[in-house]
């Protein structure tokens, strides 16, 4: 019997990756708190790491290290040993470093934002910026200044 559960179970790591990615994406878009956005970004990136690592794996695979190479003796049945693919692991090590640095930059920015506005809530920051710099009404303000000076 191949029900939907079997389909999910057969490649459950990919389903987890999709679910995690969507959770992270949702947090990045919908959350108002800046820290939660960064957490969302981290979940998103972790999901991608999971995807890469699942990509590399193969059933019954082992670490890609040649057995018994020291001592000069040749490896017997080397073809029988199944290795997992090391390339995605290397790639994802790099991507993890990138992710860590992005998080570091984001947190540094958040500290400065907090010092400036005293809040981490997007709405509060937006309101504070609007009151400081009414960009769209700049023309109207200029107009009224001109009119006052003309009178």
């Amino acid at each position, binding site marked *: 019997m191949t029900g939907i559960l079997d389909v999910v179970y057969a490649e459950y790591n990919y389903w987890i990756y999709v679910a995690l990615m969507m959770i992270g994406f949702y947090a990045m878009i919908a959350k108002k708190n800046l820290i939660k956005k960064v957490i969302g970004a981290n979940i998103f990136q972790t999901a991608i790491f999971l995807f*890469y690592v699942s990509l590399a794996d193969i059933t019954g695979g082992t670490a890609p290290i040649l057995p018994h190479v020291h001592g000069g003796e040749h490896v017997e049945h080397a073809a029988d040993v199944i290795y997992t693919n090391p390339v995605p692991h290397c790639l994802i090590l790099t991507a993890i470093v990138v992710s860590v640095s992005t998080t570091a*930059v984001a947190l540094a920015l958040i500290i*400065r934002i907090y010092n400036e*506005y005293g809040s981490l809530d997007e709405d509060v920051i937006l309101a504070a910026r609007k009151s400081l710099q009414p*960009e769209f009404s700049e023309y109207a303000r200029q107009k009224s200044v001109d009119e006052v000076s003309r009178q």
Partner: protein
Amino acid sequence: MTGFDLIATHLPVLTVVIPLIAGFLTPIVGWIDRRLPWYWVMLATLVILLITLSNLATVITTDTIHYKLGGWNPPFGIEYVIDLLNGFVCLIIAFIGFMVAIYSKESVKKEVPGKTTQFYTVFLLLITGLMGMTITGDIFNFYVFLEISSLTAYALIAMGDRGDGVVASFNYLIMGTVAASFILLGIGYLYAVTGTLNMADMHNLLPDIYENKVVLAALAFFMAGFSIKVGLFPLHAWLPDAYTHAPSTASALIAGLMTKVGVYAMVRFMFSVFTPAFVIDVNMTEILTWAAALAIIVGSVFAIAQSDIKRMLAYSSISQIGYILLGFGLVNVIGITGGLLHIMNHAFMKCALFLVAGAVFYKTDIRNIYQFQGLGKKMPITTTVFLIAALSMIGVPGTVGFTSKWYLALGSIEADQWIFVAVILVSSLLNIVYFWRIFDNIWFGHPHEIENIKRDEAPLTMLIPMVILAILCVFFGFFSGYPIEQIFEPLATTLLGGVP
């Protein structure tokens, strides 16, 4: 002589290595003397400029350069490939980098006080990232350089206006992370189906498996990611804030280069990793042209509504990116020639305009265009540069903007898409509207004490790069024949491959 030969074989990789090492040495240079980093950055960018010139000359006279990093052969090792396309984009990066480096001295001193050394460090690292993105032939290496350039851009933007700059930078960071993650996913998908990371190898392997849905998903991820990176219309939300609130020097560099390199990457993936036939087949080019047409119109309309000059230029950038992508979306030789030409032209024009905005801000602390009255008398050279670059942006004959718009219009006609000709015309009219407000204020404004305005020109280090860029805008307006025949048309033909 042998020493020179030794270096000559490594010229391709030096374009990335020199700014990287120079970037990390900048703090030491700045520690020796605070005034030194400016000379140091100028030296580094000048060296890169010469190297990229030599690389491009080699590519034109002989053939594509393949450089194997560490001697590992291509499908396994990382390969740097310089062909006409990225040789030319590298040259633009190095040239604009050099110009902005010359300009930066006074501007950085004023706008980023006390942090000039850090600014220049990040500046060189941004050049590294952009160079690496352009020159690499390996898609994962590309991702790493993409992140280097993004992270440095966040840092540069955060150095801008107190508060606003940081918020703009954070918003860009969130959007940029989504974009980079999409691109990383796309790379993973392509690796899963082909088992290679080399672009040329992938280009050969992919045609057999085009019916595979994973390839389609990868293309979709790439296009979504790059659309965020270049600020294509519905995904442009990060761009205006980031350009407006960055320090003027950083705005000029980022506006001139970041989006161009994003477009280059998009083109590289569309035509050199996938094949043009496949991209046309899944209607990606058609989607691109319509999105671009929308961006052209909406960007111009938004630009009219702005009163901050940098914000206006940022919206104008969104519309100009639309032009470039329209050219590539048309997928015919003339359209792509126009798109390539517009990459160069827009780098010159937009860089010049942002430099002017920075120079005006440096002298007067004004960014609101309704306060520009009398500026034509106060800063005649700066405003003349602005006039030339803005006319070029509008597309007046005799400037570079005209040539590329002409090619784009011809390309649209050849593709039987008359509506895009109309879009280009309407957008040019809208360009006149938003630039005319500034001309009007600069030369025809009537402040009460216009007689008392003294000539107060920007310092020479600012004037030289602006004037050079303005001269180039006019020069290539009259003499665009050589680059078009030598670089852009052959390039467009090769990019398209066998597709009519």
